[in-house]
């Protein structure tokens, strides 16, 4: 058993629903108890889809358990087929039905439906949403494209003379973070290279389209978390090479263009020359100088976290101080990258663990998911969302890709927005006593953020210390909040005592670097066995760490 306040991912059958709902002509019959239909509102409300997801639930209740739940499944499957007339049927269990062991796959086979039936075996007590999506896409791909596979050992026939190279775009699903606009951007990019798009899947594809996957020359894997397994099978079966670069950020988009050009046998240079994202100039313009060395914590699914870390360091001039993911299947990539950045990887789906890592590192900016917004709000740190899970505001009406040229522009605006603007930051370093524009008031261009910042942090001189902050926080917002690992003792037992003078001096440091200054000073004092921190210790530490 594991205590969980918030989860980064839903159960694996939600991943399967994301694939079924993304596609056309696929229906999913899910053996599940009454109540599991809550999943529908993820699609109708968060993604604001105008139609019900392509799922029929058996919704058994306690009284059905005495009878034959297997019969209930069979009648639901028949009813779903007759009503929706899908071209392929997915069948599977939710976590409770998994315990009943009715075997939806076997049962569906006995119904003799005249369409392909794809059974899904998704172990709910071991695996999660992303894996469920990946597995579902893989099984659908195998079921539909498998019969079209060439004989074992056969070579891929050469592309006929004069025919443009073609590719599939793999990975976009329902409820994916910005998948809609990413596909638009990448499609444009590929077409400008002269590559034809064969099939985009799962998003918008029909089962018959999956049968044509083998006709493309290569595969573009946009979201490895969803499409990696299917792409590897396609590579083996149809000898279709695949892309590895995910075009999030200017550098990665250029790498992507080169990789695609190579796979397609085309010249990348004309396309590279025509790419004109605004990010590089915006980032070079002197207004952005103050962004240099801002400390960022990056967390999300592996693909978005890796891309964000690269953009942060190479394209924005930030310093990555933390990097992590909740997708364990891709932990290795994150570990390797964390090593390259010289930081500890955070591989965890425990939201309290991520919270304590952020509290400990005290970054200037958090790039994360909906959950990190929650943490950042508690800690008073600016935050931007780079990855699912996300809420309704991150399914915007406007064009808002993360990928390609326009994606880079979106990233620049989104990440800089929560930070305090340069002039204000300077003025705060000079004048601290202003009744409106003080360090604890928050950036003045974000009215709501300044209002929301707990006033307690202005009143209490020790408010930015992790040991007291959540106390102040909980008294001002919620009468009782779950204390984090940060307040359960880190820095309390070993921390040297601050003299009143030093505490006052510390407060002259602008709030966005104060946490780091406090941490460094305490580390400096602890390492040297200084029991009481004076103003002298503070400046000694400053001199020591600025070397």
């Amino acid at each position, binding site marked *: *058993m*594991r*205590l*969980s*306040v*918030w*989860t980064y*991912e*839903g*159960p694996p*059958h*939600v991943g399967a629903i994301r694939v079924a709902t993304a596609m056309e002509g696929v229906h999913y019959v899910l053996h599940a*108890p*009454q*109540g*599991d*239909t*809550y999943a*529908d*509102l993820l699609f*109708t*409300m968060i993604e*604001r*889809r*105008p*139609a*019900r997801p392509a799922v*029929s*639930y*058996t*919704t*058994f*209740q*306690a009284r059905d*358990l005495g009878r034959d739940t297997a019969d209930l499944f069979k009648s*639901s499957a028949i*009813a779903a087929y007759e009503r929706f007339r899908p071209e392929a049927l997915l069948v599977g269990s*939710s*976590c*409770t039905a998994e*315990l*009943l062991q009715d075997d939806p796959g076997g049962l569906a086979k006995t119904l003799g439906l005249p369409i392909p039936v794809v059974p899904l075996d998704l*172990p*709910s*007590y*071991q695996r*999660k949403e992303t894996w469920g999506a990946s597995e579902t896409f893989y099984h659908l791909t195998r079921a539909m494209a498998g019969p079209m596979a060439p004989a074992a050992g056969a070579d891929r026939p050469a592309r006929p003379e004069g025919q443009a190279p073609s590719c599939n775009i793999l990975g976009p699903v329902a409820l994916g973070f910005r998948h809609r606009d990413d596909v638009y951007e990448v499609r444009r990019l590929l077409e400008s290279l002269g590559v034809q798009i064969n099939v985009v899947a799962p998003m918008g594809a029909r089962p018959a389209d999956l049968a044509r996957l083998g006709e493309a020359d290569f595969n573009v894997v946009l979201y490895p978390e969803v499409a990696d397994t299917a792409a590897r099978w396609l590579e083996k079966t149809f000898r279709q090479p695949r892309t590895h670069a995910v075009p999030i950020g200017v550098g990665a988009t250029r790498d992507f263009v080169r990789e695609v050009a190579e796979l397609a046998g085309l010249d990348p240079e004309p396309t590279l020359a025509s790419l004109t994202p605004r990010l590089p100039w915006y980032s070079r313009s002197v207004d952005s100088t103050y962004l240099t060395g801002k400390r960022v914590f990056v967390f999300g699914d592996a693909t978005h976290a890796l891309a964000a870390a690269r953009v942060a360091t190479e394209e924005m001039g930030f310093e990555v101080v933390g990097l992590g993911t909740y997708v364990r299947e891709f932990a290795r990539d994150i570990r390797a990258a964390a090593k390259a950045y010289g930081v500890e990887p955070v591989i965890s789906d425990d939201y309290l663990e991520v919270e304590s890592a952020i509290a400990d590192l005290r970054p200037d900016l958090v790039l994360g998911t*909906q959950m990190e*917004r*929650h943490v950042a709000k*508690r800690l008073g740190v600016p935050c931007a969302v780079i990855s699912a899970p996300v*809420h309704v505001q991150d399914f915007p009406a406007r064009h808002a890709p993360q990928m390609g040229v326009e994606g880079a522009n979106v990233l620049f605006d989104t990440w800089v927005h929560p930070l305090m603007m340069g002039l204000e930051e300077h003025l705060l370093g000079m004048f601290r006593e202003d009744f409106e524009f003080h360090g604890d008031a928050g950036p003045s261009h974000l009215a709501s953020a300044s209002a929301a910042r707990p006033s307690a942090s202005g009143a209490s001189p020790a408010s930015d210390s992790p040991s007291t902050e959540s106390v102040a926080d*909980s008294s001002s*917002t*919620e*009468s*009782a*909040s*779950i*204390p984090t690992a940060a307040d359960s003792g880190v820095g309390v037992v070993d921390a040297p005592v601050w003299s009143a003078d030093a505490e006052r001096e510390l407060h002259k440091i602008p709030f966005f670097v104060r946490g780091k200054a406090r941490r460094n000073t305490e580390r400096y004092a602890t390492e040297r066995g200084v029991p009481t921190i004076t103003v002298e210790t503070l400046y000694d530490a400053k001199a020591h760490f600025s070397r």
Partner: protein
Amino acid sequence: MPVVREQGQREVFCGLTGIIWLHRKIQDAFFLIVGSRTCAHLMQSAAGVMIFAEPRFATAILEERDLAGLADANDELDREVARLLERRPDIKLLFLVGSCPSEVIKLDLSRAAERLSRVHAGRTRVLSYSGSGLDTTFTQGEDAALAALVPDMPTLPLQEGAAEGGADSATDLLVVGALADVVEDQLGRLFAALGVTRVHFLPPRKAGDLPPVGPGTVMLLAQPFLGDTARLLEARGARRLSAPFPLGEEGTTLWLKAAADAFGVPADRFDSVTEAPRARACAALARFRGELDGRRLFLFPDSQLEPVLARVLSRELGMVPVEVATPYLHRGLMGPELALLPPETRLVEGQDVDAQLDRCRAERPDLTVCGLGLANPLEAEGLTTKWAIELVFTPIQGYEQAGDLAELFARPLRRAGLLKV
């Protein structure tokens, strides 16, 4: 009144969702769901924007090894509860909430609650109930939670001079069902003005303030979905007053009148106390009558509030209910409501969602009350909807809220008229 019973796919929430409002009502209680990742995911999806506030609920997620052996699962649960209480020393009442997975593997949470109550005696009381989809639909989760509190309620001492068990011995009024704080306060003031002074509310705002119950108790249900809780309270000697539920001017008056009669409040006093708020409620409702009069209404099953809403909307606002569906119909509790519904109303208990959608499309009602899984798809088909869940998150009971209740239904229609794109 004939009732159509339907079976098939049900598009409803499970009882776990009751936690979303109950954890705010009982301020020192914590709700620990013992379930799967699905349960945790449901809670955070349903909790919506509240995700930014630190909640007083969590899920102990069952893992592969918990399914292997039951003894192990109990040890695991004890450990997680100990960890939780260590982190949250302010918690006085802990609910272990059963889910579908915990029911199917027959994890005995009531025994676990007894055991943990002993371990944490003097600090935290541990109770259990089931909020699973197997047993409960949406608001029935509140019924199950309140029912779990009943055995812990202190016994009401018999008043001196009162004849034991007699109808005249009523000394205390117990109002059952979680209400918005503002509604609770208004009702409390009305009862005080009527001269009914010993009024208690279940659930209380603090776990330590459980109201007493006994043969001197008469109870009024403020919510229609509290069948089990009412039964257990009756078993402890309380007498239930039969009345419609306190929605709209009429319902609130009849509801208050039931209590006034039980406590022997003179009719002129009742009239003088209720006169002004009744007039206010009528005036507030009248403002919306023009917008709602004659509009056809279709209610999908959700909370068991549906017959009550249909009664208010038809009798006080002139709407025409074509189909009123409820997940469960307790004829005993709902009798006074059904008597006030227009006789031609089609009443449905249970659901077969696809068949019901077909009926709804065929009827093309002016306003459809349904869950969030159906609302946007129906809007896309050109039907105006009112999402039902809001009705349990909004203060709608009592005189002062009668206008707000009407506005909840008028707003989508007004909006549909406003938008020109």
